[in-house]
């Protein structure tokens, strides 16, 4: 597998002496090319610091890293040539139009004035702001500014797109549009890293995840593998709708080996069973010839997975 991001014991300490804060602590991870990677963690987990280190906006205290094969310390300018970044808390020049802002930034990306103008119009079209390109950014809504933020990151035809909290402050409609945009970009083959603390976004758009807590890496990997790991740990949960005396059955299910928890919710029997004993539930239903209307394995949400890996704040 080809990795687009690789870090080895990456550590960042801000400040010195008593005021020193370890923002990132020995983080070693890999992100495969072509993935949509969710960077998860509460505020202060080290997400923005990790992003800043990856694009060379700040230098690591120790450890090393490579993005697109370039060293994050020695070759950060090459990284910024190929990585589109939407930083957290970014801002445009309000007195300039959307098009003027993009032309300016495109020129700084190394494009000629003519190419920057063409590219700016192209990305504005892609993110659905072409009708607003001559409007001053000051008149833009938060959602429009966020979309313009994506546009500036796309100016350099990035191989990797890093988005730091892209949907913060955006209304639900705008956030959905934003997610759709990221999904369409990932289909174009752009590797994307998206930092967020809105967990429901992860399941929709990501196939890979990195979980940080207070600067430490808790887990990283393919979303399916992570989900499997959590299910194996916490067990599978089944929902069964049964005709008859549900209370009697509840006691019988409790006696099955491996069953951890049985309870009733909305007239349905909810059974949590350890992963390796999950087949016993169906086997029991067959053996006892229990007639059921509905049998389903309850899907595990990303909130549950995250909470299981991350624990409390």
């Amino acid at each position, binding site marked *: 597998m080809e990795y687009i991001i690789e870090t080895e014991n990456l550590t960042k300490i801000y400040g010195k002496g008593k005021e020193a804060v370890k923002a990132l602590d020995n983080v070693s991870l890999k992100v495969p090319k072509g993935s949509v990677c969710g960077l998860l963690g509460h505020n202060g987990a080290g997400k923005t610091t990790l992003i800043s280190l990856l*694009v060379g*906006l700040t230098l690591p205290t120790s450890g090393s890293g490579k993005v697109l094969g370039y060293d994050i310390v020695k070759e950060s*300018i090459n990284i*910024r040539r190929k990585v589109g*970044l939407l930083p957290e808390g970014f801002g445009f020049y309000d007195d300039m139009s959307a098009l003027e802002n993009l032309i300016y930034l495109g*020129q700084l990306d190394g494009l000629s004035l003519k190419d920057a103008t063409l590219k700016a119009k192209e990305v504005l079209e892609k993110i659905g702001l072409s009708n607003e390109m001559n409007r001053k950014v000051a008149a833009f809504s938060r959602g429009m500014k966020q979309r313009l933020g994506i546009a500036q990151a796309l100016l350099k035809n990035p191989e990797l797109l890093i988005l730091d909290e892209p949907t913060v402050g955006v209304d639900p409609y705008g956030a959905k549009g934003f997610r759709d945009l990221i999904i369409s970009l990932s289909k174009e083959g752009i590797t994307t890293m998206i930092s967020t603390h809105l967990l429901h976004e992860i399941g929709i758009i990501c196939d890979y995840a990195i979980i940080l807590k207070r600067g430490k890496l808790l887990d990283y990997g393919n979303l399916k593998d992570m989900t499997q790991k959590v299910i194996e740990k916490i067990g599978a949960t089944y929902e069964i709708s049964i005709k008859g005396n549900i209370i009697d059955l509840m006691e019988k299910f409790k006696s099955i080996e491996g069953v951890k928890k049985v309870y009733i919710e909305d007239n349905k029997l909810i059974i949590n069973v350890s992963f390796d004993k999950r087949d016993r539930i169906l086997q029991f239903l067959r053996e006892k010839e229990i007639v059921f209307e509905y049998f389903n394995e309850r899907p595990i949400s990303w909130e549950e997975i995250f909470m299981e890996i991350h624990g409390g704040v």
Partner: protein
Amino acid sequence: MSNPTFIISKKELRDHLTSKKFIIILALLILFYLALNAFSTTIIAQYGFRIRLFRQLSSGLISNISYIAPLLGIALAYDALSGEREKGSLKLLLSRPIYRENIVNGKILGGFIAISIAMIITTIVGSVSAIVIWGAAPIFEDLSRLIVFTLLSILFTMCYYSLSLFFSSISNKSSRSAIISISIWIFFTIVLPMVSSLIAFSILGPPPSLPGPLTNATTPGQIQISEEFRNYARKLNEISSRINAWSINYHFTTVSNRLFQTITMGPSGQQAREISILDALSSSAINIFIMIFFTALFIILSYISFTRKEER
């Protein structure tokens, strides 16, 4: 592919030239000149001085520039870097494939060109208005000195620009950078000259004796100044000059005054010694060096602080 420094400086220059603060300060500089020229006309009419363009402009030029030009330097630089930080646009700039030095260089180049434009416009308007109001024809010597003076004015304004840029590079808030820069301007322009005189007086004590009227005066009202009083005045000037030498304004006024020391024709026909441009500049080399050093020092400090500052 264009150089990022030039791209940034082009935007910076356009922002400066269209900003209200630039237009207001430029208008102030020009209005000050026009008012001064109008005022000088009255004096010329009353005393009948022969008009020599450069000489007539001198006092107005120096005080105008030494008071108002620092404000231009501060106005253009106080938010140069901190403003980008506040807006969040610095994060977008830093995510481009450019070096941080490109950003500082672009800011300085844009600021330098804007300052040069302001100084050239001010000098041209001041001179043209003097020619129109007084009907004085400028000679080549006058124009040469005006060009040198304009260069010195640009250098002096750049001193305050670099100072303000440094505070902008270390501050997260432009208001803080502006307050510090303006406080330094007030200190150098108003406080230090007053304090230096007070210190000189407190060291030397009261003057030996007040000068009295000259008994054998040929001209009514002429006063006799004793040697002791002359010494006292000389020492007073020396002490206050040494203290004022800590102010960048002092070095600008010193070199400008030397540049302006040229033929003066009064009603009595007295003739002062004329100092050539080269002599004026060479005798003020240390003052010019200090202005260049001051500017360079704060530009270097701005580079160091901006390139090393952690942008979170």
